[in-house]
């Protein structure tokens, strides 16, 4: 018995919608098995992990808070991946963006004016974009693999942040803890009560970005250019599209979004810099981008699904004493399932007996 792939005459539209659903279904089953292996009730685990976060207003609020940076970063990454640019260093761009955006509130804490707010966001976007331009420029100029360079720069950014908060930017009133001074009120994202759920500006920004990216991808020449270059660089070249400019554009765009997302997390949650500012949003966003089929609306849904797994991990830890690390394992499995299920879009899978179809045909 073995698997055999039969190419479909054309891409299956049904499977394009179904494959992420199948992948999520397989992840739920895997989760049940993992819980059972740890000697816990699988059904209770599945309920707590996947459904409990949706059952309270507080859960929905946390869901929006976790999904927001994931969606923002994944949107940028989707443009990279669609055009065959493998930016996997969003975590570093997030960190550098947050550092660049924190320059004003950390170095000029007494400058408490409304103009600080847009400047912080602008500098964060610029910082993230500039940092993302490094691997892009190296790819364009020297042909260096952007996969490896963008990832290496993540480690450098994290170490740089560590040095800043332990060295020159350490708060003089922080009892020697590795933290900067608290941001002043102009550089803080306030939450507002929206029907019992407290949300801040960043969630609105993520929703606007989803709409903007949908329009950009489907209705503009730039969106067409991205898709053509991704599917066939040769066809893109004949159409006069520059793959090099596209590399720089998509990297800078995704870096800017990662920087913004990182800055808004800092402004909303901790309001200062510390050695660790993100629970790996930049890496998890890669899963979000693929689970969302590199489509802006899909990414919005995928961001919510992955956010559930973050909260579910906390829920099973407090209620059932199962390690929250299960969430990371399931996120990795989910990406595998998504990629494997995508095969169904182009191929039909057949189980064949001992001999391959060619031999059978000959016999």
């Amino acid at each position, binding site marked *: 018995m073995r698997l055999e792939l039969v190419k479909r005459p054309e891409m299956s539209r049904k499977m394009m919608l179904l494959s992420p659903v199948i992948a999520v279904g397989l992840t739920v089953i895997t989760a049940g098995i993992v819980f059972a292996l740890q000697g816990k009730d699988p059904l209770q685990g599945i309920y707590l992990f996947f459904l409990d976060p949706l059952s309270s207003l507080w859960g929905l609020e946390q869901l929006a808070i976790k999904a927001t940076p994931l969606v923002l970063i994944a949107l940028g990454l989707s443009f990279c991946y669609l055009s065959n640019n493998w930016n996997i260093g969003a975590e570093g761009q997030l960190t550098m963006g947050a550092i660049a955006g924190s320059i004003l509130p950390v170095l000029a804490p007494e400058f408490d004016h409304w103009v600080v707010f847009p400047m912080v966001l602008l500098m964060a976007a610029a910082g993230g974009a500039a940092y993302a331009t490094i691997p892009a420029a190296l790819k364009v100029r020297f042909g260096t693999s952007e996969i490896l360079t963008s990832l290496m720069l993540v480690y450098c950014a994290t170490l740089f942040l*560590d*040095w800043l908060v332990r060295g020159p930017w350490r708060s003089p009133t922080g009892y020697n803890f590795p933290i900067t001074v608290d941001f002043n009120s102009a550089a803080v994202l306030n939450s507002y009560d929206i029907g019992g759920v407290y949300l801040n500006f960043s969630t609105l920004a993520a929703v606007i970005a989803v709409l903007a990216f949908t329009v950009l991808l489907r209705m503009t020449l730039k969106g067409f250019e991205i898709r053509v270059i991704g599917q066939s660089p040769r066809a893109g070249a004949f159409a006069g599209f520059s793959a090099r400019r596209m590399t720089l554009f998509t990297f800078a765009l995704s870096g800017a979004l990662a920087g913004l997302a990182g800055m808004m997390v800092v402004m909303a949650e901790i309001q200062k810099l510390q050695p660790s500012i993100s629970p790996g949003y930049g890496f998890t966003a890669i899963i979000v981008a693929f689970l969302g089929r590199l489509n802006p609306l899909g990414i919005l849904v995928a961001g919510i699904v992955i956010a559930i797994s973050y909260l579910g991990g906390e829920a099973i830890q407090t209620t059932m004493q199962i390690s929250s690390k299960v969430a990371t394992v399931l996120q990795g499995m989910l990406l595998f399932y998504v990629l*494997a299920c995508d095969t169904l879009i182009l*191929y039909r899978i057949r189980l064949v007996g001992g001999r391959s179809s060619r031999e059978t045909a000959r016999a």
Partner: protein
Amino acid sequence: MLEAIILTVITAATPLLLAATGELVAERSGVLNLGVEGMMVMGAVGGFAGAITTGSPLFGMAVGMLAGAATSLVFAFVTLTLVANQVASGLALTMFGLGLSGLIGESYVGQPGIKLPSLSIPGLTDLPFVGPILFGQDAMVYFSFVLVAAVSWFLFRSRAGLVLRAIGDNHGSAHALGYSVIGVRYLAVIFGGACAGLGGAYLSVAYTPLWVENMTAGRGWVALALVVFASWLPWRAALGAYLFGAVTVLQFHAQALGIGLPSQYLAMLPYLATVVVLVAISGNRRKTRFNTPACLGVPFVPDR
């Protein structure tokens, strides 16, 4: 001082060399497995667990090797049987490996490990300077060189190695000649996983006999860069691994050498060095392209 530096360079280079050699074979067969980091970290947790439960560091190394190979099997199934995108699947493997190893290793955090013993030959090991360097290493250091020699012989002197390279360069023709493209690639990926697992186990059994979450700290990615640096030649990977080992340990000796940089900047060095080396290598395009397997990362579906 010099002796101490050389000794730490060797232990820092060995895990990189093991992982890079395995990945080199996988890439020669045309499969780009970006999940080295995930396989290494699974090897590290497996090796640590194997060593402390049985008390035998060598058994730990074997468990680590198996853990790496088993992890790679997931990648092989998804990319070879289901022809999924290799880049994305490699990333998935890394995340999966980091997550699962953290889960498995939770109970091992803070436990003391068992260190792989070093060779000791009376007379030879006691020689000044050359003794500890040449005759005082642990078994895996010697094994890593045997492995490089064996892989080099296999790839360029054996018939099976020729088939493997042919599959990596033109899977269509190799398939037409009747070779099993998918079968050979499965074996190459599993070999790569086993080597990465060994490299990971070396970290938790010999380098620092401890389990710490994410203890590979990007070494899997450095190993991937080493394969490019080596332009897919095993002996050059050994040279690269030792260069990187030297850069990595520089941070521990920097103070004694009178380099006054903050520790975070020194810790950045291996990552920055990787970027610099990749740029330097890719600048020399003709040479890299000559050895790059032509079908690297290209999925293969047998036609009928």
